[in-house]
């Protein structure tokens, strides 16, 4: 039995409207309301009775859960599935699946800066024989067959600095940024070059590949603005530029999770902006990044995505979620190149459905075009 037999089919009428809503911020065509993208990952599996481990271990099941539950929650018309360590297996790490977590690295890590030179960047052909690319291709082929109207092939550069840091251990990496910056930078570049080859491979297979790349480990909790620029923003630019040259894009999702108190300023004149770019920031200090500030700083560059704090998604208090959603919607809904309401990061696996639906209710109440 295939996973597709576990789910009722998608309602074509719902999907047609959700597709228009999804296109709306990019093409200036107002639809019923602002879109909500809570960045659902393993919550989709949990909501359908599966486990977090099932979500990551069985990508076809995981992405079908995302498509199914997005429909029921009235969210995006497109599907996605990912984890934070793509391309790491090809660079020497072993990943272990966990019952309650996304896959984690069990090493082996490199411990000497000199070992960075020995890391081989796999080319597209080598990636085709690796783990990450065949897994994504298999999954998108499943979507093309079973949920074709939701298909967007996405290549993940993901958290370039965070994933590169896993190759030597995060503590070592942070230390190297002070003591061995050349080795630390070279490591990030090797991870990025591998991700670019991955985007190339996916674009060759599907004729396109949306790019998702972020700055998660590189944030103001550990880095200065200058360090975030050097290690993260500059390499995000390099990733997108090189991926475009290889035929990936033009859609980009920039995901800045974590505390970007002041370093958000380094991204505007560093990143590459395409007509189909979404820019998202999680936190400013300990608070959610205000959508009003996001609009002011980035609203003229791209479509922006505001944040509802993931921490409140697991508290039994839908009113708090509703009020924060309202505040963010009022701050960002008239952004000149469109607004999407999101969570500050992945919505937690055990997100309370009443909270998630509070975001959707707020979007209906305060995100209806023509009422502001």
């Amino acid at each position: 039995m295939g996973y597709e037999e576990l789910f009722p089919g998608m309602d074509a009428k719902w999907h047609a409207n959700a597709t228009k809503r999804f296109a709306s911020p990019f093409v200036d065509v107002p639809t019923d309301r602002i879109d909500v993208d809570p960045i659902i990952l393993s919550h989709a599996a949990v909501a359908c009775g599966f486990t977090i481990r099932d979500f990551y271990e069985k990508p076809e099941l995981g992405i079908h859960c995302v498509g199914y539950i997005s429909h029921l929650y009235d969210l995006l018309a497109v599907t996605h599935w990912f984890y934070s360590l793509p391309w790491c297996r090809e660079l020497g790490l072993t990943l272990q699946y966990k019952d309650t977590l996304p896959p984690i690295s069990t090493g082996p890590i490199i411990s000497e800066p000199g070992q960075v030179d020995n890391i081989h960047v796999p080319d597209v052909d080598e990636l085709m024989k690796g783990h990450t690319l065949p897994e994504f291709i298999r999954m998108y082929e499943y979507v093309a067959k079973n949920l074709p109207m939701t298909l967007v092939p996405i290549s993940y550069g993901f958290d370039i600095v965070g994933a590169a840091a896993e190759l030597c251990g995060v503590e070592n990496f942070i230390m190297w940024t002070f003591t061995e910056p050349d080795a630390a930078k070279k490591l990030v570049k090797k991870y990025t070059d591998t991700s670019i080859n991955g985007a190339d491979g996916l674009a060759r297979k599907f004729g396109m590949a949306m790019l998702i790349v972020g700055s998660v480990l590189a944030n103001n909790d550990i880095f200065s603005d200058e360090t975030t620029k050097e290690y993260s923003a500059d390499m995000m630019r390099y990733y997108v530029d090189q991926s475009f040259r290889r035929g990936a894009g033009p859609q980009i999702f920039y995901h800045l999770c974590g505390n970007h108190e002041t370093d958000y300023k380094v991204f505007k004149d560093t990143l590459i902006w395409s007509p189909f770019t979404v820019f998202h920031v999680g936190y400013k200090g300990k608070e959610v990044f205000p959508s009003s500030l996001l609009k002011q700083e980035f609203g003229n560059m791209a479509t922006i995505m505001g944040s509802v704090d993931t921490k409140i998604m697991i508290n039994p208090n839908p009113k708090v979620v509703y009020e924060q959603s309202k505040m963010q919607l009022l701050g960002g809904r008239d952004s000149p190149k469109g607004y999407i309401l999101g969570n500050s990061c992945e919505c937690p696996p055990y997100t309370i459905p009443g909270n998630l639906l509070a975001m959707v209710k707020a979007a209906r109440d305060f995100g209806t075009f023509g009422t502001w």
Partner: protein
Amino acid sequence: MDIKIPDNVKEVIGKRGIKEADIEAVVKEAESSNKKLVKNGRNLAKKKIGDVLVYVDYDIDKGVLSKHAKVNSAYTHRIVLQHIVNADGPSGWTCAHCNEAAAFGHVQMEYMTVKRNGPAVVCAKCGDSWAEEYLATKTLAAVEGLFEKKRA
């Protein structure tokens, strides 16, 4: 000036729906106005012909009695490049008209009445902008396709 188009380039431009007369028009205008990008002897010129912007990438061979243009490639896009949004990195190109380094940056782009930003090579002095071949034939071609689909 004579314009030479090698057979392999003829094949490419044929597939892209570009006429040899278009190429001649682009090169002639660029050579008389000096409005073009240059890099190590390479030239990149553009001209609006009908609904599309036609670009020609060419070298100039100077003989004893005359010079001729050898075409390396030609391509088009329909999206309209408007004002410069920012200029944030080196492009390697020089704006021949201004004799100034052109930057890698962003311009406002308009297609089907929608205005969004996109990358381009820009000259901050004269305000002109250009899309390199990879950008026009891959990224902007996909952008045009998405706009057509999403506006439908």
